[in-house]
Structures are given as structure tokens and as C-alpha cells.
């Protein structure tokens, strides 16, 4: 790949996952990609592999023109140098830090020589941009699900990431918060234009947040394409069930159908 101006994340990896092998190739540009599949199909493992927390045996991970991992060239950049924003299901806010200090943490990681005061005011600006400037001094435990999601996203973006990895971004929210967070996320993802991979069990998430879908089964990408195409011709029984129920919001991953 040449030094294209459009950010792009390309992943082609093979990694042992205990009972099966994760073998996946994905290309993500400005169009967000939803990664769907039954529990245990390797979705989260794939995210962790891209993050650099699982080491694949073979393959290559390239972000724009930067090689994050290349087994043949023995390149394996540590997680902290990959510039990937990772939002786990429960948002991963540090419980011992206030909202503002959570964001300031990200700023401190990227620029050590800035004074604490300056960092806090910059963190405050991030929170204000996400409409939660009034919650800066609160601890995460005193924030609602939707508010936590905003803090987490503000923090992730404060670390100036080059791609976004979201793991079930609405699964831990109640139904009302889910609608709000979904709208907010959809707008944020669109305006950022970063390569985005989103793991989800929820057809509503897929519809609202992604324009492309990759279906994962037993570690393999069995289909990858435009949302409309995958919806029209679902490649697995999981995918067909996912999209047939897309008008009804699912409760969570627990309700995912089992495969014969």
C-alpha cells in the first residue's frame, strides 16, 4: 500500500484460539464495519489481536501506511504505540479517577510535558464538546450509562487515535439509553471518518452505526460486504436471524441464537 491520505486499517491474521483458529482478513476505510457472529466466534479475540493484546502466529496488520504487526518482518508494535482507540463493552472508565481525570489520563499519555492544570483544562474542553462539561468532577460510578459512554469516547478521542475499535457499545445499557447512545455514536463515528470496527450482537447497532458487515463464524470471516447485501442474502443462520429480527431490539449477547 502507498501512503494514501484516506486512513485505512487492513488486517490479515491467523492466530490459535484454543479450540479453533482465528483466520481473518478485513479492510476498513472510512466506512464503519460491523463485526457480527455468535458468541465464541472470535469477535473480541480479533479486536484484541488488532490491539496487540493477542499475538497472532501469522499475518499483517497495517494502519494507513504504518505496519502495526508483521509476522514475516518480526514487527510487533506494543499496544500503547498503535494509536487505536478501544472502547470495551463496559466502557473501561477508570473508577478511581473523575471524568475529567479520565480524559486527562489520555492526554498525559500522549504529551508528558504539559502541566496538570493545562491538561485538565484541555480535558474539560473535550467533555464540553461532548455536552458533559458539568459532570467533570464526578466519578464514573455516579454517571449514567449514556454519560459514561460519552466520557469514554471523549477520552478515546483525546488520545488522538487513528482508528476506533468498539466492543458491543450498547450492550450494557438499558433500552432508553441505548437509543440515545446509538444516535450519539452514529454521529460521532460519521464525523470522525476514522476506520471503525464495531463488534455487536445487536441488529439495531449494525443498522445505525455501520455501512459494512463482516460475519465471523468459528474464527473465519464467512462474508464481508455492504450492509444491504449481507442483509439481503445472509451467509449463515446466525446472520439471517440477526437481520430478520432487526426491527426488534435484542436484549444482549445472552440471547444470541445457537448454531446447529
Amino acid at each position: 500500500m502507498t501512503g494514501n491520505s484516506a486512513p485505512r486499517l487492513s488486517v490479515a491474521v491467523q492466530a490459535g484460539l484454543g479450540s479453533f483458529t482465528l483466520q481473518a482478513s478485513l479492510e476498513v476505510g472510512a466506512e464503519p464495519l460491523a463485526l457480527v457472529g455468535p458468541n465464541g466466534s472470535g469477535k473480541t479475540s480479533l479486536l484484541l489481536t488488532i490491539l496487540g493484546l493477542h499475538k497472532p502466529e501469522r499475518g499483517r496488520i497495517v494502519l494507513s501506511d504504518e505496519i502495526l504487526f508483521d509476522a514475516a518482518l518480526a514487527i510487533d508494535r506494543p499496544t500503547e504505540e498503535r494509536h487505536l482507540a478501544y472502547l470495551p463493552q463496559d466502557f473501561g472508565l477508570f473508577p478511581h479517577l473523575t471524568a475529567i481525570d479520565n480524559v486527562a489520563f489520555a492526554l498525559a499519555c500522549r504529551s508528558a510535558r504539559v502541566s496538570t492544570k493545562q491538561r485538565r483544562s484541555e480535558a474539560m474542553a473535550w467533555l464540553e464538546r461532548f455536552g458533559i462539561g458539568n459532570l467533570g468532577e464526578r466519578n464514573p460510578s455516579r454517571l449514567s450509562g449514556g454519560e459514561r459512554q460519552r466520557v469514554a469516547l471523549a477520552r478515546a478521542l483525546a488520545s488522538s487515535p487513528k482508528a476506533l475499535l468498539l466492543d458491543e457499545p450498547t450492550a450494557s445499557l438499558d433500552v432508553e439509553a441505548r437509543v440515545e447512545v446509538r444516535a450519539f455514536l452514529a454521529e460521532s463515528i460519521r464525523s470522525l471518518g476514522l476506520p471503525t470496527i464495531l463488534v455487536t450482537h445487536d441488529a439495531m447497532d449494525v443498522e445505525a452505526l455501520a455501512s459494512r458487515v463482516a460475519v465471523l463464524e468459528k474464527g473465519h470471516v464467512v462474508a464481508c460486504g455492504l450492509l444491504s447485501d449481507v442483509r439481503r442474502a445472509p451467509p449463515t443462520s446466525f446472520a439471517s436471524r440477526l437481520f430478520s429480527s432487526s426491527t426488534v431490539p435484542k436484549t444482549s449477547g445472552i440471547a444470541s441464537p445457537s448454531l446447529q
Partner: protein
Amino acid sequence: MLGLGGLLLLFLVLPFVALVLDGGPEAIWRGLGCSLTWPALRLSLGTTLISVVLVVVGGTPLAWWLARSRWRSARWLEILLQLPVVIPPAVGGIALLLAFGRRGLFGGTLERLGWTPAFSVVAVVMAQVFVSAPFYLQAAVQAFGRLDPNLLAVARSLGASPPRLFVRVALPLARPWLIGGAAMSWARALGEFGATLMFAGNMTGKTQTLPLAIYTALELDIHTAQALSLLLVVFAFALLLFLRRFNRGFEAARGAATP
């Protein structure tokens, strides 16, 4: 059933009753005035304080490494490091003597460097560190092992270097368990007897800690031994109260925090 439980309860409580009541307050007061008391108390508090600091300073990074290591030998090392908990302290004392005593494995080397730790105050600290470190290590390894892997993953994805991850995320999150472990380790160091006797000896004012002073006092006057014992019970009781308060305060803070 209830009767058996009651018997055990009586058996466990009666010695403490005797420890407090026997001889009356005057005998205990006189016992406290014995010439052994203050040197032993001073030595015990001073050496255990140093021991706890050494255990925490060395044990925290070691526990962090043990908790995060996927290296198979790390599991074996964890077991090895637990040994001092289950072996008799006297065995620890012999082992220390064989390692660092004048004729020990490394004693000759140490002596050439002008340092003979055995039967000195340094040996008291060494014995205490040896027997008490596992208590702290166990608590710390568990605390670090229980940290939410997602939080650590997020911290790293945000760009946190390994030292920052340790200092800014792991340490503050593990702190309550680390403090609990340090307190248990301190209690173990304060009560240390066997290894100290073997490796440091029992010299009043030099290596005679409170438990050793109790042993010596027993030959002079039982009430002196009783008074010194009460002193240790008071420390232990205060420690347990502190831990309960601390845990409750911690749980309340976390509990009130959950919506």
C-alpha cells in the same frame, strides 16, 4: 452440635480471659516495668517498620510481575515464595543461617565484604522479611490478578507506557488489598520468633524483640511474660480493628458509588 461449637468457643476465648485477668492489673503493671520491656518494644517496632517497608518496596513490583507473567516458571516461583508461610519458622532460621551465617553458603563472601549479618539487628530484620513477605506477596499477586483486564487494555490503548500503567492504574486500583496485605505482613513480622531466635539470637537491647523477651521473661516471672504478651495482643487487636474499619470504609465508598 451447638455444644461442640460452644466448647471450641470457650477453648479459644478462655486463654485471652486469663491473659487479661490473671494476677490483676497491679501484677501486669509491675510486669510492664521490667527492664526487658522497653528495649524489646523499641526494637520490635523499629525492626518491623523497616521490614514492612522493605517487603512493600520489593514485593509490589515482584507481585505485579508475577501476576502478569505468562511464563510457566512464574507459577512455580509463586509456590516457592509461599513456602515460608507453611514451613516452621525455625526451619526458616536454619535456612537463613546456612545461607548468610558466618559459615553459610554466602557468609564467606559477605564477610570478605566486611559484613556479617547473623546475630545482629540486621538479622532480626532479615528474619522478619523472610517470614512476612509471603503474606504481602500473596495479597498483592491476587490484587493485581483481579484487576479488570479491560481497564488495563484501555489504558494501554490510550498510550500508557508500562510504568504509567503500573503507577497510575494498577497501584491505585489495587491499593486497598495492598494495604491489607501490608498489615498482615506487619502482624506476622511483629510475632516472629523462631527464625529470629535461630538467626539473630536473643540479646537484650540488640536482637531481643517482644516475642523473644516473652520467652526470656517466662524464666524470670510469669507476670512479666503476661504483660509483654498483652502488649502484643493489644497491637494485634488494634490491627484487626483497623482492617475491619478500613475494609468497611472502602466497601462503603464503593457501594455508595454504585447507582
